[in-house]
C-alpha cells in the first residue's frame, strides 16, 4: 500500500506548495507512483481525512489554527513542517514586534474588529513536528529527499552545519569579501547557498543552526560596518521567533 500524503496550509503565501509542484514530468509520475496524494489544495479539490504523512505549510497566527493543527497531528503518523513559516515562524513573526491590536489595525484598518490574531509561531510551537523541510521556499530536491527517506524508513540526511560549507563548495567568493554582510555563518545549510551563488547574500530563511554562536556573528556584522539596529533587522526578517533579536 502506498502511503497517503496530505498537504495543509496555514498562514503563508502557499509558495512552498507551489514549489513542490515544480517537478519534472517523470519525477512527478515517479512520485505519484510512490505515494497517494490525498489532500493538496493547490492541486486537487477532492479531500480525504485519512493520511499517513502530513506536510504543514505556513505559520500559526490565529487561535483557530491551533486546534486544526492539533487535529492533523492526531491523524497523521508523521508531520513534516514545510517551509520557513512552518519551520521557524518566518516573516509572519515580524508582527510579533507590535501589539496585536496595532498589527490588526495596520492590516485591516476599520475592519480589524472582524479578525483575530495571535503572535505568529512555527508549527512546532504548537505540536511536535517530526521533520522539517526548510527554506523560503524549500527546494524540491530536499522535499523529495525527505519523502524518499520516509518511504525507506530512515532519517533524512539534512545538513546541520551552516551555509558557509555549501557556499565554499559552490566556490563562491565570500559575501563579506565583496563588501556586503551575510547571515550564512549561523544559518542552516541545505539550500546549496543558492542566494550567495546568485550574487546575493544569506537572509537566514532556513533558520539558525543548533547552538549558533550568535554573539560572534553579531560582532562580525558590526565589524563589517553594521550598526546594532541593522544587525537586529538582519536577523529579524526570518528569525524573529528564535528570539535572537531580544
Amino acid at each position, binding site marked *: 500500500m502506498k502511503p497517503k500524503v496530505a498537504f495543509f496550509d496555514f498562514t503563508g503565501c502557499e509558495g512552498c506548495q507551489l514549489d513542490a509542484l515544480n517537478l519534472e514530468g517523470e519525477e512527478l509520475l515517479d512520485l505519484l507512483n510512490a505515494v497517494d496524494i490525498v489532500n493538496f489544495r493547490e492541486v486537487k479539490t477532492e479531500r480525504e481525512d485519512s493520511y499517513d504523512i502530513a506536510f504543514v505549510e505556513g505559520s500559526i497566527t490565529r487561535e483557530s489554527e491551533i486546534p486544526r493543527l492539533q487535529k492533523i497531528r492526531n491523524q497523521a503518523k508523521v508531520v513534516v513542517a514545510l517551509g520557513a513559516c512552518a519551520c521557524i515562524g518566518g516573516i509572519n513573526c515580524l508582527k510579533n514586534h507590535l501589539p496585536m491590536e496595532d498589527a490588526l489595525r495596520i492590516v485591516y484598518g476599520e475592519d480589524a474588529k472582524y479578525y483575530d490574531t495571535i503572535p505568529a509561531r512555527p508549527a512546532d510551537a504548537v505540536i511536535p513536528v517530526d521533520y522539517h523541510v526548510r527554506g523560503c521556499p524549500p527546494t524540491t530536491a530536499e522535499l523529495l529527499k525527505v519523502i524518499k527517506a520516509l518511504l525507506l524508513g530512515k532519517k533524512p540526511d539534512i545538513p*546541520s552545519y551552516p551555509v*558557509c560549507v555549501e557556499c*565554499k563548495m*559552490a566556490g*563562491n567568493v*565570500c559575501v563579506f569579501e565583496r563588501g556586503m554582510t551575510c547571515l550564512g555563518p549561523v544559518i542552516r545549510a541545505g539550500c546549496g547557498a543558492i542566494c550567495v551563488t546568485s550574487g546575493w547574500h544569506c537572509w537566514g530563511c532556513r533558520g539558525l*543552526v543548533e547552538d*549558533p*554562536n550568535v554573539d560572534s556573528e553579531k*560582532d562580525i556584522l558590526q565589524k563589517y560596518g553594521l550598526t546594532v539596529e541593522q544587525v537586529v533587522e538582519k536577523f529579524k526578517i526570518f528569525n524573529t521567533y528564535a528570539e535572537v533579536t531580544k
Partner: protein
Amino acid sequence: MQENSVLIVDDEPIVRESIRDWLKDAGYQVATAETGEEALEMVEKQDFSVMVLDLRLPGKTGITVLKEVKTQRPWIKSIIITAYPSAETTAEATKLGAIDYLIKPVAPDDLERLVRETLSAVGREPTVTTEVEIRPKPPVVEVVEVKKAFVITKDSLKSMVEGLAKEREVVGVKSRHGKYVYDRIASFEELCLDYDVTVMSPTKYLLPAKETLLRFKIGDEPEVEPVIEASPRAIIGVHPYDIKAIELLDEAFMTTNPDPNYIARRQNTIIIGADCLNPSPKSFAPSMGTYLTETGFDLLLTNIGADYMITVGSEKGADLLAKYAQVREPSGDEVAKQKAVRDEALAKYELSLNVPRERLPKLLEESYDDPYWESRSETCLSCGSCVMVCPTCFCFDVQDEVVLNLKDGERLRQWDGCVLVDFAKVATGENFRHDKASRFRHRIYRKGKYILERYGKVGCVGCGRCATACLAEIASPLEAFNAIAESVQAKEAAMRTIREVKPETELYAPRLAEVVKIDELTPNEKVFEFRFKDGKELGHRPGQFVEVSIMGTGESPISVSSSPTKDGTFQLAVRNVGNVTNALHALERGAMVGIRGPFGNGFPLEALDGRDVLLIAGGIGLFPLRSLVQYILDRRSSFGKVILLFGARSPAERLFLDELDLWSRSPEIEFQETVDKGDESWKGNVGVITTLIPKVDIDPGKTMAVVVGPPIMYRFVIGELKKKGLADENIILSLERRMKCGVGKCGHCQINGVYVCQEGPVFTLAQLRNLREAV
C-alpha cells in the same frame, strides 16, 4: 638499541607485570627482571633506553644495580619506584644518576608520562646520522634542486595552452569579484598567472565537493557497481604550496588503502605550476617549507619578465613541451633573474612561524590542556569555512541518495570537516567532539602534528586561505602555533626559574671540585684527578668535555680523559698553553676548581657497540681518546677487534707511559705507536702516524675508526682510511673549537650552522662533508 625499550626490575610479580602491561599497551618494548642479578645479566646482553627499578630487591639491592648499570651502560636512564622512600636512598639514587623516583603504588599515567619524558630526553642525545641535526633550526626554505629549465615566450605558452585545450579540459586561475578562483579556461587571455591566492584550492579537481563512489540497485540481492569518473584535465598556475598539498593528498590517498577515485583523477591530471611571486598577506608558506617546490608538478612556470622560465618536473611535462611548445635554453642572466624574482617574492612574506616547524608536534603534544584552545575558540562559528578552503583538508562524509522509484541509487561522498558540530557525532547521539574548543584544537593538531606524524608531510602548507575565510579571524594555524609556542616557552621559563634554586643546574655557574691527584706526564702536560665537593659524579660519556674555571683567570674547555666506568672521580689531562691551563698547572692537591659540564655529544658509544674499532690518536689527541680506550677495555666483550694507533712528535712527548706499556703487552688490544722523529734511545717506529695505517689489517665493513688529533693530521689520516675502504659514516672525528660557553649560545665554536659544543665535538666524516668550514 630499541629506541623505546624499557627494563622493569621489581621482585613483586603484581607490580612488575602490571607496569609491563601498561607500558606495552602504551607502545613500548618492555622486558622484566625479578632480581638485581637477572637485571644485570640482561643489561650485559642487551641495551635499554630506560630502566624502571625497585630499590628493595632480594640479593643485589637497587642501589647496587644502579651502580653497575652505570658503569656498563651509562646512558641508560633510571626511574626509581619504591614503597619506602627515604631521603638517604633517594639522594643516593639521584647521585647515581637516577632521574626521578615514584612512590608505590605507582599511578600508571605518572609512570608512563615519566618514561615518555625520559625517552624524549634520550632521543635528544645525538646519534650517528649522516646529517648533523641542528637545534634549534630556524624556519628554512627548502633547497630547490636544479631541474631542467627552459625559457618559453608568452606566445609559445599561449599555443601550448591552446594545444592542451584540444586534448583535455584546461582549468586555471581567473579573476572573480576582485578575488581569484580556479575555473575552466575558455581562452588563454582569461588565464591569470600573477595572482596571490585563490579562494578554493585546486585540490577540488582531485577531490571534488561531491562525487559518486558507487551506483547500486536496491533489492533482495542488491547490485553494486563502483563508479570512477575522471576525464583528462590540466590545471595551470598551481602555486608551490598547493603542489605540496597535492603531494600530501597523494600520500594519503595513493599509499595505504589506495583510493581508486582519487588515483584515476590524479593520473588524468597534468599539473602546470607557477611560482608565487605576489604572496597573499596572510600566507606563511616559507615557514612551512612550501614556498618553492622541486617536486609534484609536470611543468612549473616562473615569470621572469618578458618571458617565462619553464621547469620540467616529469616525463609527462617534457612530452608536453616537445609536443606543443617552442622553448630555448636560458641564458645566464635569465637563470639569475629566476633566482632574483624568487628572492624578491620571499622578501614579501610578512608572517612567519616563531619556532622551527619540526618542533610543532612536540609543542602541540605539550599544549593539549592549554587554556588557549578554549579562549581562542570562543568566537568560533563552527561554520566550516576554514576546512572547506584548506588544501590539506580531505575529510569527507558518505551518504546514499536514491531516486524516487526507490530502486536505484548512488553512494556519494562530499566534503566534511572536523570543525563542524556533528562531525564526531555517532548514531546514539554521543558527540565525541561536542564543544567548539575541542574541535578547534583538533583541527590545529591535524595541521601541526597528526598529519605530519601519519604521512610525513606538513599538514599545513601556509597558504593563508583559512585566515582569509575565517570571519572570526581565529583560523590561522600560524597564529595558533605561535601562541602555543609562546605559552610553552613561558612554561619552560617558569620551570627553569624553579630549577635555578638548585645550584648544580645553573647554566654558567660551575660546581666546585677538589684536585685529589696530580701526575706529571711531560714537563708541559699534567693529568689532574678531581672529585666534586658535593660527592656527585660527573656523569659524562667518553669524548665529552667540561669547562674548567679558575676564578679570576677564566674558563677553558678540557676533554675528560677518564672513562665513566671509573667510579667517583674524573681526570682531565692538560697541556699548559694558556691562562687557565697555566693556572691549573700551578695548583696543588686539595685545591678547588670550578667545573661546568659535561658538554657536547661524546663518542657514539651505541654505534661502536659490537663493532671492530680502530682508534687513532695524534699527540694530545690521546687525552680525550684515552677515556674511550679505558671504556672499551672495561667493557671489552662488547667490541670486536680493537686497534689503537698513537703517534707523538718525539719519544719525550709520549704520554701516559705506564698505560702505553700496558697496552703494548695486552692481548685485548692491538697497539702500535710511532714518533715523527726518533732519538738514540728510541727503538720503535719512526714516521708520521699515517705510516702505521697501511700496516693494520681491518675489515672495512665491520670497522669504525675514531680519530683524534691536530687538524693537520685529519686530512692525511682520512686519506689513508679511505684507501682501506672505510665509509664516511664509519670514520669518526673529534673537532677542536673555541668552546667558550659550552651551552650553544656564545657562537664561538660555530661551524657553519653547527654549534660544536651542542652537536659536536664528535662528528662522522659524512656529517663533516656537509660542513664546509669543518676540516
